């Protein structure tokens, strides 16, 4: 193993880190070069996509520390694309000073995402998790003039560091039981073992850190404040790319590493393992997220609670397990991320114009900007799972995978709960749409100005959500093919 080869296989990450340094340098040299910084960052990310594309099909370095596989490459690309959209969103956020620094941190977070996605070894996963986490804490607290932003950063940091500590502790237990940190090797070691208390503690503690990252109840308490208080691009990034990567890694950990201790979550036939744990997290998230969202009057807070509920739905696929379940989870989390980036993009523009993101700021949006209203309604309806948008197919895929797993419709209780949850969710999604389309604007009938770049990127995202709903095969087939 020569360093040259390592550099070749890690070239996407290297490109992004170099771009981050370049952006930082440009930002230091001139405080006004907003456009240049964004352009360089976008260019770097595009290069990184190219670098991912020319990687070999399969390669494994250092016992799984860096793994190149079709699945990892696909999700590296997805994460980078989400980062591109986040970068495109930054110019519309006025409150950000030190543009270069902000973009550099986004890029570093993206590098963290890619390490996370591209690793099948616990230590490297943890390093990726920390690199991502530390960047996100800074991003959440970046608006130094806003108290809420500081609160968001602090809350996110406190919860996040505690969760990381739990995960590291859990990993050490698992290491103690199996004597290795590579996921594949752990799976081999665990085959003979039944679920002993020590292992159970290890597994649960490991899962805590990821439950925090994907904002599953009861580890979701940071989410509302972070989503509402952080600068909008940061919130979008936390809600989208970070979640996608977390789900990919979580899926790999439970379905590869902990595969022998799957357990069973069927009603009346629960078997100890990780799947009842995830099923409980899913059920709690769906209930808490949807019920609390009913009471919200701020769009970003509402999106946060709906994110909790969506984390619950997405977990269904992992609980189901198998290729079907995993691909359903991956599909859903991807389209969810795309949808949410779009929704936050709209929020950013409305916020720039009206100075807030409460329901009242959105009232009568259709007359102030038909484009924003149209895009927002596509994103919201996709979240609500209305055909022909991507969210509908995602839900169908997830629920059918969950119902098909375990034989004799064992997970019917979870699917019924999820459907009940999405029924509740329709109410608050419709309220948002009602505010946008039905309510008349108050005295302020200012037209929301949308610059060309935002116009293009939002339309692109909305079209993506629509197309992935009409022809879901384009993404689903790719994900299924990439799974081993």
């Amino acid at each position, binding site marked *: 193993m020569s360093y040259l080869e390592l550099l070749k296989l890690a070239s996407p990450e290297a490109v992004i880190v170099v771009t981050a340094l370049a952006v930082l340098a440009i930002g230091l040299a001139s405080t006004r070069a907003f456009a240049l910084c964004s352009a360089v960052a976008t260019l770097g990310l595009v290069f990184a996509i190219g670098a991912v594309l020319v990687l070999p099909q399969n390669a494994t370095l250092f016992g799984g520390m860096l793994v190149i596989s079709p699945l990892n490459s696909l999700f590296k690309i997805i994460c980078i694309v989400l980062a591109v959209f986040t970068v495109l969103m930054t110019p519309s956020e006025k409150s950000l000073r030190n543009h270069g620094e902000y973009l550099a941190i986004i890029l570093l977070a993206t590098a963290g995402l890619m390490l996370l996605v591209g690793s099948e070894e616990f230590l490297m996963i943890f390093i990726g998790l920390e690199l991502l986490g530390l960047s996100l804490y800074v991003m959440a607290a970046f608006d130094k003039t806003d108290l809420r932003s500081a609160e968001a950063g602090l809350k996110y940091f406190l919860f996040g560091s505690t969760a990381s500590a739990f995960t590291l502790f859990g990993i050490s237990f698992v290491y103690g039981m199996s004597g290795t940190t590579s996921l594949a090797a752990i799976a081999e070691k665990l085959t003979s073992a039944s679920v002993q208390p020590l292992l159970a503690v290890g597994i649960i503690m490991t899962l805590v850190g990821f439950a925090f990252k994907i904002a599953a109840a009861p580890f979701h308490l940071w989410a509302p404040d972070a989503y509402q208080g952080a600068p909008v691009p940061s919130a979008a990034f936390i809600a989208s790319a970070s979640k996608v990567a977390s789900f990919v890694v979580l899926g790999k950990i439970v379905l590869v590493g902990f595969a022998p201790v799957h357990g069973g979550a069927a009603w009346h036939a629960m078997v100890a393992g990780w799947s009842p744990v995830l099923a409980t997290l899913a059920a709690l998230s769906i209930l808490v997220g949807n019920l609390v969202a009913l009471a919200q009057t701020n769009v970003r807070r509402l999106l946060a609670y709906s994110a909790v509920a969506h984390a619950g739905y997405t977990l269904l696929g992992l609980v189901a397990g198998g290729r079907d379940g995993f691909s359903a989870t991956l599909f859903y989390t991807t389209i969810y991320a795309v949808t949410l980036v779009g929704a936050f993009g709209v929020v950013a523009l409305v916020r720039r114009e009206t100075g807030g993101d409460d329901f009242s700021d959105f009232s009568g949006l259709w007359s102030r900007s038909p484009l924003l209203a149209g895009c927002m309604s596509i994103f919201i*309806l996709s979240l609500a799972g*209305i*055909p*022909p948008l991507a969210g*509908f*197919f995602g839900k*169908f*895929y997830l*629920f*059918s995978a969950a*119902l*098909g797993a375990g034989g004799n*419709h064992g997970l*019917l209780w979870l*699917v*019924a709960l999820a*459907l*009940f949850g*999405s*029924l509740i969710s*329709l*109410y608050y999604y*419709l309220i948002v*749409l*009602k505010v946008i*389309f*039905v309510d008349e604007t108050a005295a302020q009938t200012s037209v929301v100005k949308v610059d060309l770049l935002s116009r293009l990127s939002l339309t692109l995202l909305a079209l993506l959500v629509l197309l992935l709903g009409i022809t*879901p*095969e384009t993404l*689903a*087939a790719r994900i*299924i093919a990439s799974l081993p």
Partner: protein
Amino acid sequence: MIAWTIYITFAGAVVLLFMPRFLARWIALVTTVADFVVSLIAFFQTSIVDLAHFNTIVRVPWVPSLGMNYHLAVDGISLTMVLVTGIVAVSTVLFSWDADHRQNEFFFWLLLVVAGSYGVFLSADLFLLFVFYELVIVPKYFLIAIFGSTNKEYGAMKLTLYSFFGGALVFIGILVAYVTAGSLDLNQLAQFQFAPQLQAWAFPVLFLGFAVLAGIWPLHTWAPTGHVAAPTAGSMLLAGIVMKLGAYGGLRVAMNLFPQGFEMWRNWIAILAVIGILYAAAVALRQSDLKFVIGYSSVSHMGFVLLGLATANALGVSGAVLQMFSHGVIAALLFAVAGRMIYRRTHTRELDALSGMNLSHVLPFAAFTFVVASAASIGIPGFSGFAAEITILIGAWKTFPLAVWITGAGMVLVAAFTLRALKKSFFGDAVSSVRMQEGRVTLDADWNEQQSITAAEKIGAALLMFATLAVGLYPKFLLDRIMPAVEAMRCLK
């Protein structure tokens, strides 16, 4: 050929969004008329023999990795439903001719409802059917919440949540069928033998989900509230088409997939249907708002559809399909008179207020239309209502003789509330105008200025009246096509 109804309507809806305002209604009209013509041509061109089975028109892989196909098919039942959708859609556009508030949006949502309905009636893939079924719901919300009247936001939300509740039940039923049989093709599923234990619980879940939209008692309460809150076009679509989606789904999907489950539960369906017929008719008798009367009458008439389905014999089920057609036309006509012809001019739907206005002299054409609609609704021979309900009752006589007696009594109630509404709204006595002047109901001062019935309204009403008369005089025309298709289903005894 007939698949073009779906494409034309979606294309029309999208084109509408980018057109100037004054063109909106013309595009909507051209679209719906084109649909109607297409469905008429298909109706006369397809030979009756071909309509006995659910024959595939289009079948292309859609999501091969999950076994989904874009699969459309047609038989006598779906062709009948497509036809009624076409008629109601054209007249709905005609009765919305003077829409003046956010027209593009209005006709966009309207066309989406129509397109989705065509899609449901022609789908032969369970997933595709469900996509179209859910697609219809959200446009209804906007139609009512933006363009409605009385208590519109409440009515819209209630209707939407009820629909989605039904949709969630349907979702469970479809998922269970899909993961058990491993297929989404309706024709294949109709051959698949599901375990009786599964059918015993999956059938009621699936059927109830669809029946919510058909207004089954006691889950019917969204219908009157929704009808009243909706704009005229909304009520017409809702009663004329959307409620049929539920009944159609119950027949095509629930009964056809789980025949044994149907056998176990059909007595309960019949009981709920009879209660619905009587209860809604009794409630309608006490309403003071004309639209509420018609709203409850819809629930009552849909009860006949459910009763017909529950009979499980060819005559009863065919009668149910005929009733879907007939009620679609009649309800659209009734709502058109109440919402468009009367309310737009008098700005009230209170029966007491209307009875003082002597409307039969002021709006003779409206009075004529309402008399025809009422006669059809009551079930006077010669109109489609009679043909359909008598078929259902003859079918029911074989399986539920008691229900026929009770329903017979119910038909008296239907006649009673219809005649009461007719008398109060058009042939009232002058006495009650005094009460009106006491300020009970505010009367718009300038309503006389727009009293004459417009040509668009006349054409729309004539179309609907022609449909109910034609089918009433010659029901064989439809029954010849419906009966063989019904007999091909395996849910019959």
